[in-house]
């Protein structure tokens, strides 16, 4: 009887210890499985983020290349051609002795040089907008809006309630974003009216953009476009983001927000 009781006690003890141990082991396995799943999700998220960053970088590089090509073309076809013609006129000036002809060629050469200077100014203005440099972002956007409205093809309304200081590089980014949006509207939307608003505070600036054109039929196609990718890329550089409005059928509707200048972390990087 004594031995049977011992065996039962040992069994009870073993069962109790094993039960508790298995319970604890179950908790550990559950936790490790959960943790593994979270790590897998994190890795997937990081991979997507990296892919997205690469896409933005590619768009940025493509945009730079496109801009360089455009400047090269402007210089070659415009300024280069006009300088070549001017050179020809000057060569004739040396050989011809007729004063009337001399005067005529001189005037033509001067006109060409004037045109060349205008072209150089335009290229230079495209590279670094003078109005932005001199008067700041708000005036530069207002200037763009006025120029387009004066053309009669489209009515652009710009409202500003933002008062603050912005980093020069950030100002240029915003200027290019607005340029890109207006170009898209003119080229693709068929809109007759554009409404833009700039608002925010010292730390953050927001910009809303609406037109009454065809709108975005497919957001993913719009996102994939080089122009839009450039906008997102520029916003990303300014720790900003782009949000599409709910109703895109009656024209494009976007809201963007970004910091007004680099943070300390950005400067360290």
């Amino acid at each position: 009887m004594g031995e049977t009781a011992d065996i039962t006690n040992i069994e009870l003890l073993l069962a109790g210890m094993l039960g508790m141990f298995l319970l604890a082991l179950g908790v550990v396995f559950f936790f490790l499985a959960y943790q593994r799943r979270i790590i897998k999700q994190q890795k997937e998220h990081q991979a997507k983020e990296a892919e997205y960053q690469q896409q933005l970088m590619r768009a940025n590089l493509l945009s730079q290349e496109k801009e360089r090509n455009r400047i090269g073309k402007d210089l070659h076809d415009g300024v280069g051609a006009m300088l070549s013609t001017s050179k020809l006129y000057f060569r004739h000036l040396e050989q011809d002795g007729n004063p009337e002809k001399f005067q005529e060629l001189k005037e033509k050469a001067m006109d060409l040089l004037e045109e060349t200077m205008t072209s150089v100014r335009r290229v230079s203005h495209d590279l670094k907008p003078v109005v932005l440099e001199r008067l700041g972002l708000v005036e530069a956007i207002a200037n763009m809006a006025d120029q387009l409205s004066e053309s009669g093809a489209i009515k652009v309304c710009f409202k500003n309630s933002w008062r603050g200081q912005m980093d020069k590089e950030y100002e240029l980014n915003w200027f290019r974003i607005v340029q890109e949006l207006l170009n898209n509207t003119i080229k693709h939307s068929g809109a007759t009216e554009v409404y833009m608003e700039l608002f925010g505070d010292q730390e953050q600036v927001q910009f809303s953009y609406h037109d009454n054109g065809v709108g975005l039929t497919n957001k993913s196609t719009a996102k994939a476009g080089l122009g839009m990718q450039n906008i997102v890329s520029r916003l990303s550089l300014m720790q900003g983001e782009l949000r599409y409005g709910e109703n895109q059928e009656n024209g494009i509707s976007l809201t963007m927000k970004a910091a007004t200048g680099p943070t300390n972390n950005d400067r360290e990087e």
Partner: protein
Amino acid sequence: MDGSNPFIKLEVWLKVSYFLIYIPLLIGLFRLKKLSPLQVRILVIVGLSFLNDTLTYVLRIRVEPNLWVYHVFVPVLIWAMYRVYVMSLTSFSINLMRWILGLVVLFSILNTLFLQSMDIFNSNAIVASGILFILLSLLYFYELIGQKKAQDYRITPMMWFNIGVLLHYSGTMVLFFFVNSLREQSVDIMLASWVLNMVFTGVLIGFYSTALWVKQQT
């Protein structure tokens, strides 16, 4: 010197279990300069266990009472465990943790004074501290689940330490609960209980060693 004598077997198991603690102790001392602050605190626990095991072993060889060592060891171990968990349980109230730990320490002292005197194995205090350590261990898992960013547990010393604590104290809980009544049972049960204790101590020592071995994730 009959090898089949259960007392000799028990003696062998005891010797093995006493010397197991040397493994994490040597790892910790070997890597002392490279240890993170948390690992140093884990090493303190290993050091305390070493002192406890050595002292009880020496007293046992000299046939002197050694159970009083456990009465001293339990409150000190609770304090050392608190120092490890307070570094990791950041989202829990430190004051609440101190109160709970204080209550368990108080219980272990009252247990020594009124329930299990110095010449009796303080199983009540060990079970109470075991419950506390299991609770801390589960709280650590709970805190990690709440974090948005998962850590790579293979290189997180606290994770190894915590798993070891949970498995050891869960496994030995029932044993320590009945340990004093087991003394009155047959030698076979005593032997079985010591073997089981050694197995779970081995598990704990293995996890302690890994916690001291891995490079702290920064």
